[in-house]
C-alpha cells in the first residue's frame, strides 16, 4: 500500500468538521494539518467519553432503577483501564461495582478483595511426588474455592489442576536390550515401550476403585507461577502478568480470549471459558479476589493463581488444606523458616521442564 495515497488517519471515515474542507493535497507531507486535527479530535472524543462515563457512573449511583444502573455498570466496566494502570480509587470503584453485581447475581453477600502484594512475601509451592496418592481431592477443592465452571456439556467443566498417573519404571535384566535407542541397552527408568520417569506420559482419566495403585505414581500439574512466564510474554493485551509477590494473574476484564497464552504455556495450565460459565448460586464461593476467583465471563482465560483471595490474607491455598497426605506445601520463599524454604534447603527438589528456563516457583520434591 502506498502511504502517500492513504493518510494515517482516514478522514473519509470520520465525519468531523475538519473533514468537510477538502484537503489541499493527498500527500500527508504536503498536508501537515491533517494529523494534528485527528489527534485533537481523538483526545476530544476521549475526554467526552470520560465525561459521559463519569456522569453516567454518578447517575448510576443515584438511580434506583436497576436496569439503568446495570447499563451504567456495564458502561463503566467497558471503559475500565487495565488493572495495573488503575489508580487506587478506580480499583475501589471497580470493587464496589463488582460486589454489587455479584451479590445481586448470586443472591448472597459477595466480597471482592483488591488487596495488593504484601512486602516481604514471595510465594512458593512445593509438592512431594512420593506422597501423592492421586485422590484428586486438590482438584475438587480448587473447583469449590475458585468458582470454576461446572456444567456437563463439552468445555463447561473446568479444572485447573490435572493429576497425571504414570506407570512405574523398572530396571531389569530382561529389558536390557529394549532400551532407547533400540539395541543400545540404555535404560532410562522406562524405555520407549514402557515409559517412565518425568516424560509426562500417562493418564488423566484413571478411575480405579482405590488409590494409590501399586504400580502407579501420580504427578499433579497446575500453573507453575514461573518467574519468566511464557504466557506473559505472548499476551497481546498484557492482561496477564506476574504480581510482585509471585503469582501470575489475569485481569479477566481485559482478556480478549485469543488463547495465545494457552499455546505458550508449557505446563498446560490455562483454561478458557468457551461457554458462559455454569456456576450454581449455592456453590458459588462468596469470598473472592479481583485477580483471583471472582466469577469469570465467557471467552476469557483462567488459571491457578495460588488462591490469591486466601494467600493475600495469609491463609493456605485450598489445595494445600485438603491434601489428605500432606504432599502439598506452601510458604514464603523469603522466609528462611517457611516450609518451602526448609524443603529447598533439605530435600531433593526439581522443577518441571527446567530446561525451558521458565523458572517455576512450584517445586517437586521427594524424600
Amino acid at each position, binding site marked *: 500500500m502506498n502511504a502517500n495515497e492513504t493518510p494515517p488517519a482516514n478522514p473519509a471515515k470520520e465525519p468531523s468538521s475538519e473533514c468537510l474542507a477538502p484537503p489541499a493535497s493527498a500527500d500527508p507531507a504536503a498536508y501537515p494539518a491533517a494529523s494534528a486535527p485527528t489527534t485533537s479530535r481523538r483526545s476530544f472524543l476521549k475526554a467526552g467519553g470520560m465525561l459521559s462515563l463519569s456522569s453516567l457512573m454518578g447517575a448510576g449511583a443515584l438511580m434506583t432503577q436497576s436496569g439503568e444502573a446495570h447499563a451504567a455498570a456495564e458502561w463503566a466496566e467497558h471503559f475500565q483501564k487495565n488493572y495495573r494502570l488503575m489508580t487506587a480509587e478506580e480499583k475501589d470503584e471497580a470493587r464496589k461495582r463488582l460486589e454489587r453485581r455479584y451479590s445481586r447475581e448470586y443472591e448472597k453477600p459477595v466480597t471482592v478483595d483488591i488487596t495488593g502484594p504484601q512486602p516481604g512475601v514471595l510465594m512458593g509451592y512445593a509438592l512431594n511426588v512420593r506422597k501423592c*496418592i*492421586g485422590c484428586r481431592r486438590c482438584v*475438587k*477443592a480448587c473447583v469449590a474455592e475458585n468458582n470454576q465452571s461446572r456444567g456437563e456439556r463439552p468445555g463447561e467443566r473446568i479444572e485447573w489442576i*490435572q493429576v497425571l498417573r504414570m506407570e512405574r519404571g523398572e530396571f531389569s535384566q530382561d529389558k536390557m536390550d529394549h532400551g532407547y535407542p533400540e539395541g543400545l541397552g540404555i535404560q532410562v527408568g522406562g524405555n520407549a515401550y514402557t515409559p517412565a520417569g518425568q516424560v509426562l*506420559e500417562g493418564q488423566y*482419566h484413571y478411575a480405579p476403585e482405590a488409590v494409590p495403585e501399586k504400580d502407579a505414581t501420580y504427578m499433579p500439574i497446575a500453573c507453575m507461577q514461573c518467574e519468566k512466564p511464557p504466557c506473559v510474554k505472548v499476551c497481546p493485551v498484557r492482561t496477564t502478568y506476574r504480581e510482585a509477590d509471585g503469582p501470575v494473574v489475569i485481569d479477566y476484564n481485559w482478556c480478549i480470549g485469543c488463547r495465545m497464552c494457552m499455546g505458550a504455556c508449557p505446563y498446560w495450565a490455562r483454561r478458557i471459558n468457551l461457554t458462559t460459565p455454569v456456576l450454581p448460586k449455592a456453590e458459588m464461593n462468596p469470598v473472592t479476589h479481583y485477580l483471583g476467583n471472582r466469577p469469570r465471563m465467557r471467552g476469557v482465560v483462567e488459571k491457578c493463581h495460588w488462591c490469591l483471595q486466601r494467600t493475600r490474607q495469609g491463609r493456605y491455598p485450598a489445595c494445600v488444606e485438603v491434601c489428605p497426605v500432606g504432599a502439598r506445601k506452601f*510458604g514464603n520463599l523469603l522466609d528462611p523458616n*517457611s516450609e518451602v524454604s526448609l524443603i529447598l534447603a533439605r530435600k531433593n527438589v526439581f522443577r518441571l521442564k527446567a530446561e525451558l528456563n521458565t523458572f517455576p516457583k512450584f517445586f517437586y520434591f521427594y524424600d
Partner: protein
Amino acid sequence: MKKSALHTILIALGAIVVLGGGVAVSVFSQDAAPQEAAPPEPQEVICFESRKGASEITQHEIQPGLLNVKCSPTTGAALWYGDPYEGTVPMGKMPLLESIPDDKAVVRPRSEKLNLLAMCGTACHNNTLPLASRVPPTLPKNNRPVPIPTMEGMLPEIANLQHGRGRIWCLDCHHTTKRNMLVDHFGDPISFDQPQLLCGKCHGDKLRDWRDGIHGKRIGEFASTGKKRWFVCTECHNPHDVQNGDRNRGFTQLQPELPPQLSHGMKDANYEKLHPIPH
C-alpha cells in the same frame, strides 16, 4: 430423580418430627410463649478429613452463604475448609517447638474420636484387681504377643498387626497400667492427643520433618509465625495398619474423586491409554 424424591421424603419426615416436637413442648410448658414451628432441620452432613475412620467434621454455616466445610458428594471427604480451626485446642508444648505461642499451634483432640478410649481405663483396666496381681489381666509372662479375642473383637485390624514387621507389640506403644494412655521411653504416659511424642521414638526423621511442616499437614495461616492447625500422626496413619500390602505407601487406600471431563474426540477414558501424547 430418585435422589430428589428421597430428599423430599426426608424433608417431609423431618418436618413431621419437628412439628411433633413442637407439640410436645407446648404440652409440657404451657406457661411458655407459643413456639413457632421451626423450619425442618437440613440433614446433617459429616465428612471425614484425611482418612476414613479418623477425624470428622460436621457441616454447618458460619456466615450466611458460607459453610465451615464442604464435603465431596462422591467420596464424603472434606474438600474445602471455611473455618480451619473448628473444634481445636492448643497443641501443648512439644519438644523443640517451645517457641510457638500456645494459641498459634492447635490440634483437634483425638480422644473424642476414639470411642473405646473412655472405657479402657474404667471397664477392664481399672486396677480393681487384688493387690498381689495388680497388673493388667492380660500382661503375658514372656513378652511375646498373644492374641486376645476381646481386643481383636473391638479392633479387627490388630489381629494382623501391620507395623514394625513383627518386631513390636502392643505394650511398646500402649501404657502397661494406664490403658487409655500411650507410653514413652521412660514408661511415662503420653496422651492420645499427642501421638507424635510416641511415634517420634522410632520415626525421628519423620518427627523432625513434621516439626518443620515438611511431613504431614497443617492448615490455617501459611506464614511461619501464623496460627496453624496441626494434623497429628494418627489422623492420617492407622498405626495398627501402616504396612498393608495392597499399597506402596504408609497411607491407607481410598476412593479417588471423579476424573476430569473427557476431551473433545475422546470416547472413553481408555482412549488416552491407546493414544499416548507424543513427546
